[in-house]
């Protein structure tokens, strides 16, 4: 019985070591991937300095989202989102930022793309957005709709956007109707 017990012990040690190596590997790999995936976000210094609710990488991801959602039009979606989120309850802000993290890191993988969202080309980004827009997971769709709404707000609040759709804007600006 004794050799068997020794073998068991050895096997247990080996398994423990193996699990340890795997864990260390996963952690190291994760840290590496994390570093690669969370670095390289460039925001102009004067913009970064003024951010109230977004970190620079959030800013870059939301900007990339806005570019695709509004294409071919443009608006400062990330700048608008940063200001708008000041007025949100902390919990809501937190949820929205978690969705931004999902959009950047997980959604591309789920749609079959290895790169993070902000690093993808336009076609692949649209692919990711479509997968979120039509996701079977209700919360992902809700997250997409929330960011989409922020993009639409950023764009259509600008009087310059109204002419193309034939909207003549507030009547108060023109005096009594």
């Amino acid at each position, binding site marked *: 019985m004794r050799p068997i017990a020794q073998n068991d012990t050895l096997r247990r040690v080996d398994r423990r070591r193996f699990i340890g190596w795997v864990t260390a590997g996963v952690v190291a790999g994760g840290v590496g991937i994390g570093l690669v995936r969370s670095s390289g976000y460039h925001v102009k210094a004067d913009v970064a300095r003024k951010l109230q609710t977004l970190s620079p990488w959030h800013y870059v991801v939301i900007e990339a989202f806005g570019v695709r959602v*509004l*294409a071919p039009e443009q608006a400062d979606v990330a700048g608008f989102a940063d200001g708008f989120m000041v007025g949100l309850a902390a919990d809501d802000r937190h949820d929205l930022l978690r969705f931004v993290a999902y959009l950047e890191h997980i959604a591309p993988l789920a749609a079959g793309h290895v790169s993070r969202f902000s690093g993808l080309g336009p076609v692949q980004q649209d692919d990711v957005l479509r997968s979120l827009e039509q996701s079977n997971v*209700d919360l992902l769709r809700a997250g997409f709709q929330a960011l989409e709404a922020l993009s639409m707000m950023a764009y259509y*609040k600008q009087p310059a956007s109204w002419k193309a*759709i*034939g*909207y003549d804007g507030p009547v108060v*600006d023109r005096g009594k109707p």
Partner: protein
Amino acid sequence: MIERGRDQKGDRHIKADVVIVGTGAGGGMAASELSRRGLSVVALEEGPYLEQEDMTQREVDMMGKLYQERGGRATADMAIRVLGGRCVGGSTVHNINLCKRTPKAILDAWAREHHVSGCSGEEMRPVFESVERDLSVSEIPAGWRNPNNQVLERGVKALGWKGGPLKHNRVGCQQSGFCELGCPYNAKQNSLKVLVPDALDHGAQVISDVRVSRIVHDGHRASGVIGAALGADGHVRGRVTVDADAVVLAGSAIGSAVLGVRSGLPDPHDRLGRNLHMHPGIAVAGLFDDHIDGWKGVPQSYECMQLMDYNMNSDRRVWITTVFAHPIGAAVMLPGFGVEHRKWMRRYRNIAVLTAMVHDESSGRVGVREDGRALIDYKLVDSDVHQFSTGIRACARLLFAGGAKKVLVPSVPPIVLDREKQIDQIPMSAARPFNIQMAAVHPMGSMSLGDDPKTSVVKSSGEHHQVERLFVLDGSLFPTSLGAPPQISIYSFSRHLSKHVASRLSR
């Protein structure tokens, strides 16, 4: 003069006969009624006091000023957006002024099945009449019907369905079409314009920017409220304490229930916050050859009643009217993104939109989040999803009958119909939450009235079953969904039940 809590320096202690929480249809009416009876009244409003020049008709700006949580409040699962007012005048400042009385069949059902006494059709009729007189309620003239409402009228008539013009409370309307963003012409005959000034004229004190955090009570009797004055930045400027002989909750079916839960009101039968109804609604769009310019003119001046039957357990519970949005609202509703979305927006002028609102059997619960905000737990039951499905098809039928070339059901994925024959192919799944955007603007019923404490929170007089001198005078009172816009019901029940507040204080 309305005092602004945002200008408060330090703490404040006030004594009054009655303190009213909220200044919308229920609170404004209660302030007017009770101050007219010679009682000293303090009305507290969480939101700001806005004047005509504050109404800029700009969506982002006004959503932040007029609506709870900047218009972003939603059910806990985020399936339904729940809009509510947050300014002096409450939701009456941003509503579309629709005026319909509580249907008689609903009042009868409340008496019969919910033990509500003293509020029959006969008893309420003179109250409705007086409220309609005071708020200058009248039918929108046919000449004021904008093209979006003309589409609905044409559709109703072409199909031979039941429908007709709606009544509003507006005087001096400039037909600018920005009603949901507040009226810069002061044409709404609402709580802000009619009732709050009347209360002030009779000595009431109205203070904006005060968030009430708690009702003071000992489990048997209410004696005031405690809150905080908030600066424009949302930070606390000072504590506000009101000692009063009676407390009136009028902060909406969401706000009043949240305050009740937060205050630890006795709730032996687990009724507080339950029984929430909301009239959830969806929108369906029609594309026309001609310009509709749906944002212009008086909104919601015509209705379709073909699918509405107020009798209990009816399987016709859909109310259809028009709805239109300014660019942001429209952009959020229209499907797709990028070039696809832009194509729809380029047709903005040619789009008419109808809404199907469900007289809901679904019943939710109002609770409190960790951060003190409302937690709205509300899930649609299958029978209501079925009503939505019926409503979507009916809207499509009306739009085609009204001349639409295409109909868009803005579901995920979007459904575009080229001809009427395709309507029956709209899948039931299009009507499910998350598959189509839903919004609710009529929360009701979270502190319902009735004589049986096992099934209601307040008595038929509006006084809390367990806590004396605590009254509820807002949409929280309604034991069921109304199936009609609630403002006249709220104004009327507040007027009708205010007499009980006064008589309680004279005892």
